């Protein structure tokens, strides 16, 4: 979605010395990163592939959440802090469906499993979409004309409220979700088995992404969304119902978060009230990395972050380990925001200038 029609029109006559420094530092950093990866690959290839598969799966889940951030940011320029918690509620809905409604225990037969996944997916997507649209109606729409920080603050407030809703509903400890995904192998590469549980995450993610692309690029509603993102006033003058379009965007974003919640619950097997907050920040970083407001960018950024996290936590040779994951992710976020606010695929915006 091309969000920002305004581009930086200043003419750079000469690049400043600091910009060369930045480029040099970035190149060195990337070089070190690649070298580190190559050494790890050479040392134990099969292990490297195992970790890569984990990264791909993480990235798929992050992509769904990151798309929600990017959709909302694209249309409202609002960081929807509550999005991660909507995702968490999605996980809770799915856990409830699988445990209480379908009564599944670990390793069920294929028929009930597929039924459970499909129904849970539908329920989680619908519920989260509605929740997200309701949040927009209650907490963001009344502040449409207020200073920009006002909706950001209500978003933080909504995030805490949703967490407490989850505490009131499920209590403050982890809910274990039975391992219902099959763990047989799909294919083998370099001595590593790619297993079905990881594959199913991708199998669910990819069609959702394609459907989203189709929705945004090809449908009338998607056109309205793009128009609203580009210029809300002009879109209103062209007869687009801006409020409804924004509500619809939140609905879609919430549905994506719901799908991600299901995948998270199935794949990681546990959900807690604060799961969404941490993962939401990571996904937001992914959205910023790819260029916020840019849909393919969000997917690309999410895959990058997923791989980075998996490599950091999993690789054996000189990896900082899971204690530092958050610091690394946030360092990436800060570096991107400071040096390349438009992200990997985004356009340069006045915000980042």
């Amino acid at each position, binding site marked *: 979605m091309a969000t920002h029609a305004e581009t930086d029109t200043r003419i750079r006559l000469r690049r400043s010395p600091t910009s060369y420094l930045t480029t040099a530092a970035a190149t060195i950093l990337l070089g070190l990163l690649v070298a580190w990866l190559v050494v790890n690959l050479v040392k134990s290839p099969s292990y490297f592939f195992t970790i890569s598969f984990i990264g791909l799966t993480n990235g798929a889940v992050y992509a769904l959440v990151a798309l929600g951030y990017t959709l909302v940011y694209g249309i409202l*320029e*609002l*960081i929807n802090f509550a999005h991660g918690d909507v995702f968490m509620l999605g996980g809770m809905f799915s856990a409830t469906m699988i445990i209480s409604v379908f009564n599944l225990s670990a390793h069920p037969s294929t028929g009930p499993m597929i039924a459970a996944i499909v129904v849970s997916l539908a329920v989680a997507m619908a519920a989260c979409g509605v929740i997200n649209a309701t949040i927009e109606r209650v*907490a963001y*729409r*009344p*502040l*449409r*004309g*207020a*200073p*920009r*920080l*006002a*909706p*950001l*603050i*209500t978003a*933080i*407030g*909504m*995030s*805490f*409220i949703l*967490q*407490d*809703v989850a*505490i*009131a509903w499920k209590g*403050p400890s982890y809910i274990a979700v039975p391992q219902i995904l099959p763990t047989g192998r799909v294919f083998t590469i370099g001595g590593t088995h790619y297993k079905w549980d990881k594959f199913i995450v991708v199998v669910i993610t990819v069609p959702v992404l394609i459907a989203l692309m189709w929705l945004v690029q090809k449908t009338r509603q998607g056109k309205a969304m793009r128009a609203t993102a580009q210029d*809300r*006033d002009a879109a*209103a*003058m062209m007869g687009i119902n*801006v*409020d409804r379009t924004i509500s619809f965007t939140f609905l879609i974003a919430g549905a994506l978060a719901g799908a991600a919640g299901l995948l998270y619950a199935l794949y990681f097997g546990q959900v807690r009230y604060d799961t969404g*907050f941490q993962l939401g*920040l990571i996904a*937001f970083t992914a959205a*910023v990395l790819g260029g916020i407001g840019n849909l393919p960018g969000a997917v690309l950024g999410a895959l990058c972050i997923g791989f980075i996290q998996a490599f950091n936590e999993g690789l054996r040779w000189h990896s900082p380990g899971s*204690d*530092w994951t*958050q*610091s690394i992710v*946030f*360092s990436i*976020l*800060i570096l991107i*925001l*400071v040096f390349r*606010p438009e992200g990997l695929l985004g356009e340069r915006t006045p*915000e*980042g200038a």
Partner: protein
Amino acid sequence: MRLRIRGVVSAAWWRALAAVGLPQERWRALPKLRRRAVVAAVWLAIGLILVALFGVWRTSALVIAVVVYLLALPWYRRLTIRGKPIGPWVPTAAILVIAITYPYYIGDLPQLPIFGPFPQLSTMVVMMIFTMMALGLNFVVGYAGLLDLGYVAFYAMGAYMAGWFASNQFAKQNVDFGAVGLYKGATGFHFSIWLVLLMAGVATAVVGVLIGLPTLRLRGDYLAIVTLGFGEILPQIARNGDNLFGTGFNLTNGTGGITPIDGPGFGNWAGQHLHLPANYLTATNLDRVFFWTSLVLVLITVFCSARLRDSRLGRAWIAIREDEVAAAAMGVPLMRTKTWAYATGAFFGGVAGAYYASYKSGAFPDDFFFQISVFILCMVILGGMGNIWGVIFGACFLAYLDREGLANVGAWINGHFGTHLDVPLYEFGIFGAILVIVMLFRPEGLIPSSRVAEEFHEGVHDEPLYDVVTE
């Protein structure tokens, strides 16, 4: 909804007034002071009846009522001493006296309905510390209008400064510089806490500048996210800092935290000759001295807040908050001014953090999480961004809720409705709800500064007017 409630209440009010022979137009004709006296008396009477019915009555409630009544009426506006007007200082002085003497009458206070007893002294200390932090954040959020979601980093930095320079964390060193209450053969840095407070403030301000320099050119929500990132990174360094980069260098003692940290004190000489407490931790009236000390720190912060707000720098902050582009066009150096706001806010956060660490005698990484940042932000927003009295009120009220209030309210609810709610468990949800409700219905806070209020209301429309909204 809100308007309807207001309508019902005001209708009842006019009917009651008419019943005692004061219809609306005669009421309007009364002098303003007398009208205010009547309104205040009615409110106080309602309050007293509530205390008598649902709280625990003490005669002191009447004294409180009289004091509040005298303060609520601006009869002192024109008081002068030798021709100098002292009116504006009367409430400040009165509140100061009330605060200073609080330890003496705390046992005689009535209990409020729902909220229960007045806060204990140890709670008051924490309330004062959070007031300092909230006033510090007010420099950034309230004055300069930069949303900072990582204020907890400054708090952590201050606490760890106290941990490094007033405990035996670095056992290979042995420096004693005016510390009190050391046992024989203590190792590590032991600076006097007063010096450590200053060092913590300065070091934190430096960290604030280092964080600010690259990030402050970002605007609005991007800055908020970056500060949030720093607020998550610094505590993580604290948590993992017991073996940095695999070198075995123990910077922060990991999840165990640094403890014990020396207490404040003035040393034996001052203790004998000036009757100042020689060592707070062994003082018989421990909570009192901590309370008075934190009160002094808050006073210093308030003084700096007020003076800085009216200074050239403070006016530049407010100009940036109101319109960054216009401020820049008028020659306000954006980066420098914002960095100063950051450094000042960080300074007070650091001092408060160091003092808190000394009071708790420890700096623990689990104390520093994102929720604390939002907690402090909530204080500033609830009280009223940019208004010192508002921020003090917000900080005291929320810190009280955090320490005692929510537990009391929960006990009251469970006792009266037979439920088993764990109200403190929902603390942050309640704070989140406060943020949302304040932003929706009174974005300028409970005790707003008039400029902030105007800012918030100039752009708000009931219906979205697409032809007017520009941003």
